[in-house]
């Protein structure tokens, strides 16, 4: 999956996890600033990412998520890149 596809997929999943159909991916946007953000939908997002990409995120990786860009970088490290 290339970067563009990954960003598109992530945006879609963020919209669903936080019930914000118009949410846009911005690398520097703080996760905590997403309207409606709370620990429950953050966990739901983590579990959804793990299921969608067939990966398991380590606890220290999850603890290092602050921004949307952090989520993207995390996925990039875990999901093979293709052209």
């Amino acid at each position, binding site marked *: 999956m290339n970067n563009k596809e990954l960003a598109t997929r992530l945006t879609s999943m963020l919209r669903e996890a936080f019930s914000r159909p118009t949410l846009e991916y911005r690398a520097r946007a703080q996760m905590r600033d997403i309207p409606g953000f709370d620990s429950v939908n953050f*966990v739901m997002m983590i579990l959804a990412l793990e299921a969608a990409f067939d990966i398991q995120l380590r*606890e220290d990786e999850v603890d290092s998520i602050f921004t949307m860009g952090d989520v993207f970088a995390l996925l990039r490290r875990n999901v093979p890149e293709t052209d």
Partner: protein
Amino acid sequence: MGTGGGLVVIDFSAQGNSAWFRHAGWSGQEPDRVWGIGPRCVLRIPLQTSGVACILEVELGPCHAPPEISGQIVRINMNGVAIGWTRLDALAMIRCEIAPSVTDGDGLQDIEFEFPGFYQPEMLGRSTDSRPLSAWFSFARLYTTDMFRPGPHFPTSHPDIPVISLMPPLAGAPVADMKTVTYTFGRGATAFRYMRDGWNLGEANFTWTEGNVSRLELPAPGGSGCYALRLDAWPMTVPGEVPRQDVTILLDGYVIGQQRLDGRSFWLVPLPRELTEGRTVLPLAFALPDARRPSDFGDSPDSRQLGIALSSIGVIPLPDHLRAAGSLRAEQEASPPPIAVSREFLAVGKATLPTAIEATLKIGPAALARGFESIGTNCEFGIVQRQLGVEVLNLFRFCNVPLPELMLALTDDLKLLADPAAVTVELNDAERREFVVALPAYNLRWHTFTYEDQGNQETLARTHGIKLGYLRRKFYEGLSAGRKIYVVKQRPPIAVAQALALLMELNRHGHATLLWVEQALDATRSGEVELLAPGLMRGYVERFAPDNDVESADTADWLRVIANAFLLHQGPNAVFREAEHAA
């Protein structure tokens, strides 16, 4: 004062010279003796050995109460090197030769006497002496063998007093398959077949001791190594009449632990290797001088003489990196001297504290706080993390859990958290009613920060059930990774033995470090942290926030504590970890 290059004689009588040599762990002077207090006492003797062997002769008598309490186990170390051990069941003179490699050729010789069986006579109900006594000393001699030979010119103080020698210290690597064995109590439970006299089998899920002494003969652990008992018990109390139960636990006639119980408690009792190696059975006795009949108070029809109720006893191996904890007899009254203490930043004011910490530790307060994880007993430290700008997902961060229930949940591997159906949601009784997620089987309760008018009970139960299942997984991943320091806030203070039980439980999954935080009785200690054993720290804050106003937590006080814990973790605690890796 006896001095000289090759001979020092120490007289412990009131006319003697022992005050010059007693370094730590001694009572005040009595007419004919001085007592060893607590688990160890040290003599510091200036003796030039010039690289030759020494003879140590010590005449001492045990604190004992035959036939129940046989005596004391005595271990002798010189300059940090184990020399040997013996059972001391009566007044005797110990004589041992010390190799030149152990002595300090030109300087001070530190002779440490360890007594894992010390006890407070008061807790046995036979005396008002509340000192943790081990043995009383009448004299000691240390001399070099080039000047003197042991013999009749150095007799005991009475011809009937035997001279005994030491057995070699117990050492060596533990066997690989050391496993925890847990015995449960109650009708038909696994401890039943090992109970001897002094039990009442009336209850299904636990067992009361009955009378003043209860005996149990558990199978000894199969492998060589360091073990401890982990007990889960609570006392028979009657409000206003019987506030607590004092428990003294003996193994083969030697005291291995004393505990004052006023509520349910998990605690750890190290087993001296001298009493477990080569045995098939552990003959345990519980002495309970405060056992009473409930029928003697009020309307209870229960005429059994009850002491404590036992739910389980685990025989647990101490992991290699926590073997040092095996030498801790950890009653509150005999809190061990810390390995190290960190008292940085105590005088730094609130305004400049973050800058001072960042300048010293090269890490900002938020990053520092991320290295810690709350495991209860309420959400005060979680709030402190928030005030320091840290938002992390941790299982116990916003959880209210009394310590015994936390232990119960951990010993069960939090299995019920993996079952969303076990999670319930209820409204609390605060002025603005908040939905609270609960796991009744463990008595765990979490804030949802969702109020009555904001949520739906069914939806919350489903979503929080999933969330808690994930946080359980994350909790154990964190324990295995061993990166964090786990923080437990505890009011009222707990005995070291209880903190050790929690530390051991966390260390089943990795090399965890535990920081337990108490309110400082002395305000000048606020912010201080002690390293009591590898992986075990105790910190002090001046005050805890009220339970109904945790937002008022003193962030600066907590910040000092975690900064000092960080320093100890990077310093002396890391030395233990590195030594373990090297081994």
